[in-house]
């Protein structure tokens, strides 16, 4: 390519670069004008003027035109000179070569060869890049400025700053406020270890009841006053700081620090010291003894949230009968725990030393104390176990003490509770995974199984190896006698033969084998009776080994038993909905069982039936009409709390600091009566103090405060109802 052509090409590239640079500067000018116009309109709280864009465009065009003026200087000689300046090794060969008037043909060829050897592309690119960098960044900056001007409400920014500053004044350092560097030092009571915790700029302090909280800040503390729940607290001068000390009481309270520059409010949230929990492991059950000899081992475990001081076993010996009783009491096995969080107790109660007589009762329990010196030692006690010494002739007497129907074991969850748990799980079904559903359903199923076994115990009372025993029948049912052949099916007979042979091989005696036989017959009989009672198929009964069951046939309990089987099966598969109907049938059956034939462990209670018709209104005296006083509303403060919350929310849009104070006060008052409301308010206050949007949190607090929407639904035909 001839030098002239090369220079012309370079001229084209430079022209494009000039054009690009001009465009960038024009864009910068346009964006700059738009940014200024937008910001001005926002400051003036008016819409951006409609001429803004045309004005900006005009500015851009003018700038473009001005920048493009340098195109005129892009002549061939000028471009060649520009190249010579950047490529010295050309040694003006290029300038000469392009000056056609001054160059003869042979020289032109020489010059062309000379020029051909040199490339100036790299220098050209560098020069162009340098020239475009600045305008490019200028455009970027202008674009960002325009975006900010359009999004940020500049007009309110200055006033919003003032508001934010006012809210922050409550928490952020204000050099002139004595509360600027407020620190709370919390010292737990001595019995809890006297630990010290420091909290800077506290909003609320949660501490054990009895803790001392000292609020300190540098400065003389002049004109600072303080009160806790309205009671004045003195301000002390300590070195170059001031201090206010309060004690955390049992109720939530507010500490208000006042100064001319502003107030500071801190909530005190008391944490109560729990009483120790004690579990008696031995003796495991109540006991009846014929002769009280030897020693009864006792053991227990105790735990406390802070620390145990001591523990012991307590016993009360009751002697007497009828209306005359005497009591002796004592403790044993006492020990100290030295402040440990947990510990064990053990002792042995010498029954000989107690000189127990027939009819005597010994109540034992384990007791542990914590070291609470503020409100008094918390005392926790275990369940009580009773040791009874049987009276002489008690086993031969038919005069029995009355007792109500036996309940399921106290530690067993009742059938009603199981229904509630299953219904709750069924309601949660859409929101939980299959695994969780099955796991929780099986947990309920296990409790159902335990209850079922207990019911089974009541039905199938065990009396050891007596094959006959006693049993009751419901009216109309023929009694089972030994002379009757057991009614079994062939399969069961084959199984029993097999079992008999196994027992022979194991060396069991004939009596044992007969007992097992009878157990099996009775089992089959029972199976049939249970099925007949409940109208269901054969059910598996849970007998163990070769125990001989006694059948106390109680039809409703059998029905409950079968229904519980069905429920357990469904619960094991996570089918709570299918388990609920049999669970309810079981409950209904239990209810009927209580009202039907009663099964007493100790016999029937005496009852006197009053002849109401005979005695009705035969009293010699008459009563006197009297007045009743009305009950108070359930929570009269709830409505007031809701009102105050709504007022605080309405204030928040005008005065955030006042709203925060109002909310903190409300939160402290709600800590006891409405803890969920207090927690919701705390979240909202945190957000407001942090300058975040608290709208959703305040709405949530409001819903908790007054169940804001008490009722919701479609338009009703009869309003006011549910």
């Amino acid at each position, binding site marked *: 390519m001839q030098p002239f052509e090369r220079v012309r090409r370079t001229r084209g590239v430079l022209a494009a670069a000039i054009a690009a640079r001009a465009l960038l500067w024009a864009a910068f000018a346009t964006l700059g004008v738009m940014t200024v116009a937008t910001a001005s309109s926002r400051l003036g709280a008016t819409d951006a003027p409609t001429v803004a864009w045309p004005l900006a465009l005009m500015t851009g065009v003018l700038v473009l035109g001005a920048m493009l003026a340098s195109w005129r200087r892009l002549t061939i000689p000028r471009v060649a000179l520009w190249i010579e300046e950047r490529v010295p090794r050309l040694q003006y060969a290029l300038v000469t070569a392009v000056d056609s008037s001054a160059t003869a043909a042979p020289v032109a060829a020489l010059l062309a060869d000379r020029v051909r050897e040199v490339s100036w592309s790299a220098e050209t690119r560098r020069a162009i890049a340098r020239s475009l960098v600045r305008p490019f960044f200028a455009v970027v900056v202008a674009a960002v400025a325009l975006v900010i001007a359009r999004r940020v409400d500049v007009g309110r920014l200055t006033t919003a700053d003032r508001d934010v500053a006012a809210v922050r004044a409550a928490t952020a350092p204000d050099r002139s406020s004595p509360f600027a560097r407020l620190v709370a030092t919390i010292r737990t009571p001595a019995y809890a270890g006297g630990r010290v915790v420091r909290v800077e700029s506290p909003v609320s302090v949660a501490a054990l009841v009895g803790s001392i909280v000292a609020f300190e800040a540098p400065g003389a503390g002049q004109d600072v006053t303080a009160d806790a729940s309205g009671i004045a607290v003195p301000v002390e001068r300590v070195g170059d700081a001031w201090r206010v000390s309060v004690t955390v009481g049992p109720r939530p309270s507010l500490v208000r620090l006042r100064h001319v520059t502003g107030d500071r409010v801190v909530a005190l949230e008391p944490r109560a010291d729990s009483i120790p929990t004690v579990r008696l492991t031995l003796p495991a059950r109540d006991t009846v003894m014929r002769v009280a000899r030897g020693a009864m081992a006792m053991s227990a475990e105790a735990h406390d949230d802070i620390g145990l001081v001591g523990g012991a076993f307590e016993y009360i010996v009751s002697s007497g009968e009828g209306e005359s009783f005497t009591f002796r009491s004592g403790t044993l096995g006492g020990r100290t725990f030295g402040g440990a969080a947990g510990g064990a107790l053990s002792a042995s109660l010498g029954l000989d030393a107690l000189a127990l007589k027939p009819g005597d009762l010994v109540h034992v329990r384990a007791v542990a104390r914590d070291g609470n010196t503020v409100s008094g030692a918390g005392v926790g006690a275990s369940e009580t176990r009773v040791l009874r010494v049987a009276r002489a002739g008690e086993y031969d007497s038919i005069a029995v003490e009355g007792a109500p129907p036996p309940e399921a074991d106290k530690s067993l969850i009742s059938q009603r509770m199981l229904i509630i748990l299953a219904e709750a799980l069924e309601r949660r079904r859409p929101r939980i995974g299959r695994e969780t559903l099955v796991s929780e359903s099986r947990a309920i199923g296990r409790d159902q199984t335990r209850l079922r076994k207990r019911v089974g115990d009541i039905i199938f009372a065990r009396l050891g190896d007596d094959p006959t025993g006693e049993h009751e029948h419901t009216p109309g049912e023929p009694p089972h006698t030994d002379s009757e052949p057991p009614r079994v099916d062939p399969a069961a007979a084959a199984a029993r033969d097999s079992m008999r042979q196994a027992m022979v091989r194991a060396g069991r005696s004939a009596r044992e084998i007969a007992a097992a036989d009878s157990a099996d017959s009775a089992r089959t009989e029972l199976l049939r009776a249970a099925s007949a009672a409940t109208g269901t198929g054969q059910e598996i009964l849970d007998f163990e080994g070769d125990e001989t069951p006694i059948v106390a046939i109680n039809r409703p309990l059998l029905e409950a038993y079968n229904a519980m089987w069905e429920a357990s099966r469904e619960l094991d598969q996570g089918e709570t909905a299918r388990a609920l109907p049999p669970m309810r049938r079981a409950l209904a059956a239990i209810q009927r069982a209580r009202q039907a034939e009663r099964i007493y462990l100790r016999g029937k209670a005496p009852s006197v039936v009053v002849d109401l018709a005979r005695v009705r209104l035969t009293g010699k005296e008459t009563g006197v009409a009297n007045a*009743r006083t009305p009950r108070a509303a359930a929570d009269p403060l709830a409505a007031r709390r809701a009102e105050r919350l709504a007022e605080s929310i309405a204030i928040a849009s005008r005065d955030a600091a006042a709203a925060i104070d109002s909310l903190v006060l409300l939160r402290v008052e709600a800590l006891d009566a409405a803890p969920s409301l207090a927690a919701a308010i705390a979240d909202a206050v945190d957000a407001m103090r942090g300058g975040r949007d608290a709208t959703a949190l305040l709405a949530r607090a409001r819903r908790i405060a007054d169940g804001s929407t008490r009722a919701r639904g479609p338009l009703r035909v009869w309003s006011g*109802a549910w």
Partner: protein
Amino acid sequence: MRSLADRARVIAERGARAVAFAALAILFWRALRPPPPSGVEVAGASIERDLARWTTTAPAEIHVRLDAAPSPLVRDWLRALSRSGMRTHWSAARPLRPVAIVAEPTVEPDGGTRVRLASAVGEPVSIGDAAGLIDSLATGGNAELEMATVEGDLRARGTTYTASTIARDTIALRPVLVLGVAGWESKFTIAALEERGWRVASRLRVAPGVEITQGPLGAIDTSRYAAVVAIDTSAASSADAIARYARSGGGVVLAGNTARLASLSGIAAGSVGGRVPGIAGAVASAAPRTGLGVFPVAAARSDAVPLERRSAAVTVAARRVDAGRVVQTGYDETWRWRMSGGEEAVAAHREWWSRLVSAVAYAPLVRRASTGDVAIDETPLASLIDAVGPATSLDAAPRSNTDRSRTTRLLFAIVVGALLLEWASRRLRGAR
């Protein structure tokens, strides 16, 4: 000699110049052309400014394009312009959906506001007050809300409307009279009402001539009582008075089988069916009243409104009797629900009885003196139509000023762009 490319370029430059001149000519022509004498349409964003202008320039006909139901101020302004003789039309840039909202005080001892909302299905609507959002309907529709507290005015906001209202009234609530025999049902019913905040007067019979009383006792009339609750048939001695009370505007709750009493059967919602026992154990379940015994409302009158059912039987029903209202509830042992129910049973029992009384209580409205400076706009779309008539079809709408200014800007951009293009091309190829 110019190359083909150069010649094409020159032609293109001349073409760009021609386009620029053509656009300039069109602009000149448009500038000379007068604006249409009528049918000025206003974009929603600047409507108030244009209303002010029209008020002074008084065009013969105006058209407003709305993208949302206008505020009461704009609506009233349009109505005024229309009434002044200006032909006023409006159309919607997008469908404006109807909505209506009303608020009234609930008949509850601790106050409260009931809000009824009817909105078009398909558009989400949120309901809130000055203190913030209260509730929302994701797809619109109808709703009835009861709020314990309301701050300021209530607003229902949809995409194309904002309706507002305020509870303008309060109520004067008098005590509730409970009549019955001393027993668990009367005890816990009175307890529930009192704990809920109702003032209760009561007369509980213990023995002949011996009653335990409470509160203002006198003739049963609406000046004394908001409602009368007859717990059991011991209310027979006051049955006539109760019936008269109901007919004169009072609210009556007939519990258990009290509707069998001669005078009360005439005001009851229906006759009393045979007692149906509750499902054993169900009182602790999620449907506790299924565990209670009930005398169902049998042969309900034609104007009776069933409020609660158990399977096919109606357990609670209400009806109007002349000026009053009567609710018949067949439950006679609701106390079992409170005692044996689940964790929320006490509060639920309390609330249920309160609502029962609230459904019929006589509570005359007391209108407040003023609503302050709160603007009420309960039916934005209906009010707009009432003010200026129904919407005019969009097709018939005249050209808008917005269109004119947009066209002008476009032509200007064409002029500038064409000239720049021509100039740049000439400079790039070295021409002047």
